[in-house]
């Protein structure tokens, strides 16, 4: 099984996870910029984080044979904090970078006027930088939030084929399917979606424009949920090619619209034990 995890926060994960992901078939991923789990207090904290997404984390992933890409944005939660909003001014600089394949995560958290404004402004950035957009849907008041999200997308003028609306579930998938946007599902141990319900959605709505991710982060989550969803699909009677479409071809088609995906095998990775021997990350030392 070859897997492209289109939404996973690797900065919060360990090298064990990278190894397990590679063993399960993950060869590429997208790490969206998001909240840190506690509020940031300045723009500098964002830029250090962005620098890590386009530098250190990419390097770390490469050592485990995984191609790392990211999305860059001011997340909806922190769009409400005036200390953070100025980060919007430095976004263009990051949106020009090699590993940046979309503007995201954008969207709603509490559906405030500030979130409205920041969301619309960042969709404009996506258009002007010719990048797709990754849209997060709120945890609370989800259906209303998803409807309002689709309205803002429509108003912005961005092609719905260049937008993925993420963290969907049974009540919200229908409206997004009708909109022409791509549909993202985060498979979690206890919240959001699980593998069995995901399979049921695929049976009902088909595999077109369907994208499955682990959205693993610092919370209780599992970076192998993509793989487990693939297994559940096979158990339910889907073919290998259906699994490949959902876990590889679809995310590649969506993020490929950036023209910045790099998916060839990492040079010399087959011989990783020799090639990277002595590297500090693989060795576990971090303080050289």
């Amino acid at each position, binding site marked *: 099984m070859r897997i492209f995890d289109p939404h996973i926060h690797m900065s919060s994960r360990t090298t064990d996870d990278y190894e397990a992901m590679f063993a399960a078939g993950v060869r590429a991923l997208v790490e969206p910029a998001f909240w840190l789990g506690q509020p940031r207090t300045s723009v500098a904290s964002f830029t250090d984080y962005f620098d890590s997404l386009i530098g250190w984390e990419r390097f770390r992933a490469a050592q485990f044979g995984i191609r790392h890409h990211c999305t860059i944005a001011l997340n909806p939660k922190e769009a409400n904090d005036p200390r953070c909003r100025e980060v919007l001014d430095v976004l263009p600089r990051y949106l020009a970078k090699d590993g940046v394949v979309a503007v995201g995560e954008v969207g709603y958290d509490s559906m405030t006027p500030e979130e409205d404004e920041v969301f619309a402004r960042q969709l404009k950035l996506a258009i002007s930088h010719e990048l797709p957009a990754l849209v997060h849907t709120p945890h609370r008041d989800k259906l209303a939030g998803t409807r309002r999200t689709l309205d803002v997308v429509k108003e912005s003028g961005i092609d719905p084929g260049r937008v993925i609306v993420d963290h969907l579930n049974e009540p919200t998938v229908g409206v997004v399917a009708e909109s022409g946007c791509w549909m993202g599902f985060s498979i979690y141990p206890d919240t959001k979606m699980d593998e069995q319900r995901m399979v049921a959605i695929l049976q009902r709505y088909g595999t077109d424009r369907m994208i499955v991710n682990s959205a693993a982060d610092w919370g209780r989550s599992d970076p192998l949920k993509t793989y487990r969803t693939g297994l559940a699909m096979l158990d339910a009677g889907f073919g290998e090619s259906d699994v490949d479409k959902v876990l590889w071809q679809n995310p590649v088609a969506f993020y490929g619209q950036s023209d910045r995906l790099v998916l060839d095998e990492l040079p010399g990775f087959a011989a990783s034990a020799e090639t990277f021997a002595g*590297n*500090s990350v693989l060795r576990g030392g971090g303080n050289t």
Partner: protein
Amino acid sequence: MTFHLGYGTNGFANHRLDDALRVIADLGYTAVALTLDHDHLDPYADDLPKRVDHVAGLLDRLGLRSVVETGARYLLDPIRKHYPTLVCDSPDRRVDFLNRALRVAEGLGADCVSFWSGIKPSDVDDSVAWRRMLDGIALVLDEAEVRGVPLGLEPEPGMFVQHLSDALRLREELGAPRLFGITLDVGHCVAVEPVDAATCIRRAADLLVNVQLDDMRTGVHEHLEFGEGELDLPATLAALSEVGYTGVAAVELPRHSHAAPVVASRAFAALRGACVAREHVATEPVVRAEPASDSEWVSDVDHPWLVEAEQKVRRDPASIASLFPAVGRKVGREPLRPETDPQGLVHGTVDDLARMRLLSVLAEVLEPEPLAEELSKLYRYGDDAERRGVLRGLTVLTSVPAGLELVKDALRTNDIRLVAAAMGEFAGRHLDDHNWRHGVLKCLFVGVPLAAVSDVDERADAELLRMVGDYAEERRAAGRTVPADAVTLLEARA
């Protein structure tokens, strides 16, 4: 263009040296290949130091970079041309002459001293001549070390060492000394090499310390003006750019002194024309058809996008901010020497080289202070690849403190590609001993080959060896292997 076009003073034998230098500079050349001769900075003159100072000052005022050539015909013996040589029975005067040339080169601030083997006397067999070459070069290398001036061995048709492969083999047998480089005459390649000049250039690559430009016909050792022989001049110049050659490439027409100013002017026009042709030809990406062998490397640096980007930066220096992040997407990211350096830690990558070229252009159009500011910004807001490009291009900076800030920042990271790029030429030249030693140790620690570090032989001191020794001890105590580079370093100094 990454290198400096020059003209050889042996093509101005009927001029006073000062006059020759002025004519060469006025024609637009930015370098000179200075052949020491009885009337051109005679190395046996009583007041040599004064003369060297005078010429150094003139070169400086004229903005000419230099290399020293040692091919004078009757400087050591008034009867026998080129005598004595390194392969004859008593080479002492040749060794003494080469040592003097090294001291002159040091005084001039020249890039290197070029030399050749000489013709093998008929009664000397090959093994003896080879031994004499090894011994003679070893003696001259001692002086080269003292002076800190590289030597360039020039394969010369009809002489004992006449092919590039022989020169490279000699170098290997001497243990690949750091100061033993190659001087390549591209006309000689046409005359006697089995492959063309561009291929020879790629083969010698970063061993090149001096290049001589002239035309020739296959099998005929006669230095011709461009266009009179079979040399593909645009492809030859493109190959020099491609390997990242930054030294002197000087026209070598030693039998044209009778009309030197006219010939030199024609040569300059031909070179400029070839550069334009090269940029014009490069409307298609340069992709070589032949399969890659161990001496080949991948390169798309003459990609039309890069040529255009260089022009944009020249017109509008601020445009580099938007061009810099796009380099990898446009020209590729392959390592320059995939066979020996798959991660590009030692020789860098295609995008590294392209970014260095953009920085060279930037350095030509910006004053030192704005240049330092722009490089700091490109680094600060760059991703890993952009930062690597800035680090590898730091030698364009005249502001040392600004560059050192970036080197130190990179050495604090754990990205081995940044660490490798940080320990290049700029750090070798300017980083203080303490930080430099820690940089070397970090390379050993994270697995950056020491080949990526500049000036290891020169700067490795007792304190570094102590640190490396302690590190090796720590590895052994933990039952781990000691990195091969650490062992080599310790053994070399044992």
